[in-house]
């Protein structure tokens, strides 16, 4: 197992390397450059050129990339072009809120998806099943910005239960309950979107398990159908579901970008949008690097989870 993980990490290195090159190229291919974004009309052309020169933007691309890579090896992600703060500390400030949002959304998604998926599978083709399928269809197809705006309109304006955005009430005490109140809407919006597709996973996984011989064995032992479904079937149905966490994390990152923007949640998603707007190359590179690591890592977690939840799978 340990050997397997080492091997996977070694394979991940060249992949990561490729991802950074690809990102670097895409970012530089985008029209505009950082200096254009923050120049003010009073600056002279000479000033702009000097500024570009100082930031190293006139060097050939491969040289810029080499410099970035070299710094990375020393653990240096560089300085933000727009805030002049170290990228790493910018990211560190935003990481906490994003993790909080993503984790809550994931928990919500599972809390919605698992019971509903089981219900829908055990009563296949019933009214509940059709209702669930429709619900999941909405979850998948309604874009999160629409859902987000709808939620704000409904629960923050028509029924002012929750705040419209942010993480803490401005000038408030920023207590625990305050944060939770701010968290609920964005987490629900992000969680429902994911729950939509997850319900389908749970349903199909459960349906497959429900037809297995060992469930008939369990029933033949005289077990109550509740135990048969929720112990024997669920434990098997969860194998693919637990492991799709790894696949959901990249989706979460993508979803978080939009959701954070709508709810003014001070997380990495918001930072990403801001950095794209200002062509903040170092921050963007760092964010993409982080995302790539997360995706690769979550894939590894997926495979490791397999062997944890399924006794038949052993890696060597």
């Amino acid at each position, binding site marked *: 197992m340990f*050997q397997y993980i*080492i*091997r996977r990490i*070694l394979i991940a290195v060249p992949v990561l390397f490729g991802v950074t090159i690809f990102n670097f190229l895409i970012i530089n291919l985008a029209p505009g450059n950082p200096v254009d974004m923050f120049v003010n009309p009073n600056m002279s052309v000479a000033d702009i050129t000097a500024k570009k020169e100082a930031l190293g933007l006139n060097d050939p691309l491969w040289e810029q990339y080499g410099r970035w890579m070299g710094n990375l090896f020393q653990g240096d992600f560089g300085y933000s072009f727009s805030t002049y703060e170290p990228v790493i500390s910018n990211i560190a400030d935003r990481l906490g809120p994003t993790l909080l949002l993503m984790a809550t959304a994931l928990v919500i998604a599972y809390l919605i998806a698992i019971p509903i998926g089981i219900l829908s599978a055990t009563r296949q083709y019933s009214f509940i099943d059709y209702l669930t399928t429709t619900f999941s269809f909405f979850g998948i197809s309604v874009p999160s910005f629409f859902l987000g705006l709808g939620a704000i309109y409904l629960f923050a304006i028509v029924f002012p239960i929750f705040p419209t955005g942010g993480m803490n009430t401005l000038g408030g005490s920023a207590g625990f309950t305050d944060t939770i109140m701010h968290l609920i809407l964005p987490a629900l919006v992000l969680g429902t979107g994911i729950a939509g597709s997850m319900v389908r996973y749970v349903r199909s996984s459960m349906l497959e398990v429900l037809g297995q011989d060992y469930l008939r064995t369990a029933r033949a032992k005289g077990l109550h159908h509740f135990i048969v479904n929720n112990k024997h079937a669920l434990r098997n149905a969860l194998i693919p579901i637990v492991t799709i966490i790894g696949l959901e994390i990249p989706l979460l990152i993508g979803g978080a970008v939009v959701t954070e923007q709508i709810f003014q949640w001070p997380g990495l998603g918001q930072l990403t949008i801001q950095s794209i707007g200002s062509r903040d190359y170092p921050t963007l590179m760092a964010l993409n690097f982080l995302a790539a690591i997360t995706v690769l890592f979550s894939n590894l977690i997926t495979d490791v989870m397999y062997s944890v939840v399924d006794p038949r799978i052993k890696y*060597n």
Partner: protein
Amino acid sequence: MILESLKETTISTESSPILQVRNLKQHYPITKGILSRTVGHVKAVDGISFDIFPGETLGLVGESGCGKSTTGRAIVQLEKPTEGEIIFEGKNLADFSSREMRKIRTDLQIIFQDPYSSLNPRKRIGDLLSEPLLFHKLVEPFEVKKKVDDILEVVGLPRAYVGRYPHEFSGGQRQRIGIARALILNPKLIVCDEPVSALDVSIQAQVLNLLKDLQKEFQLTFLFIGHGLGAVKYISDRIAVMYLGNIVEIAKTEDIFKNPKHPYSSALLSAYPVPNPHLRNKEKIVLQGDVPSPANPPSGCKFHTRCPFVQSKCREEVPVLKGIDHSVACHFPLS
């Protein structure tokens, strides 16, 4: 009848073999570690040799994992053997160029156990049958349709079925299609890999009878792989018994059944439930334990862990297959 069958066997043993298998080995590596080092081999087939004569049926029996199917697949070149020679009509298959190999492939055909998964579900039967003909350019395109119709009739299916898809057929009919597909190329040798194991009893009889009839009509040679002893006995002239990748005994069918010399063959025969309640109380040899793993076979005679007559020599020395008409690989063969 006796005379006739005797005559057949004498003819076949006098002529030269159509297929010679020499020291065939099929090993699959087991890998481990960061660099996928090979730490061992699953010895599916571990050095077997036998001959098949024109027009005869050689039965290959043994329990799952004994290597009988692997042997069949190696003969029709579905897998490249790790070691050993397969000599067809006097020529080593390994020496053929890929162009010559294409010709040989029409001579060597295989019928699979599960006729459903071996037929492309999206193709009509007519297409499934005409495809190999067109690929090997065996007949002129305008003759293909007639040939397909003929072959359907030969295997006992109505010609009207050419437009149907595999799922529209029952198990027995699908196996007839599988047989038709093998037969349409005018092969010389057909490997029948458990062709009746997945079928119902009454359908098994239909397919076995069909195979027997076809053999006579087209002078076919069969390698019949099976685990149902009754079916193998019914169709085979000679039988080879395999255990853990080796042939432990090979002889004429009646010799094996009347006078098995290897303790494993004898246990296999005795374990077979006979459909005759009057014989239910006869003494049986019930082997203890399971078949050992082919990745880590026992030393000496591979059967020694389950053999009721094991002696110390069996644990140390590998027995070789000895004897001319009735060969057995055992240090202490039964008499």
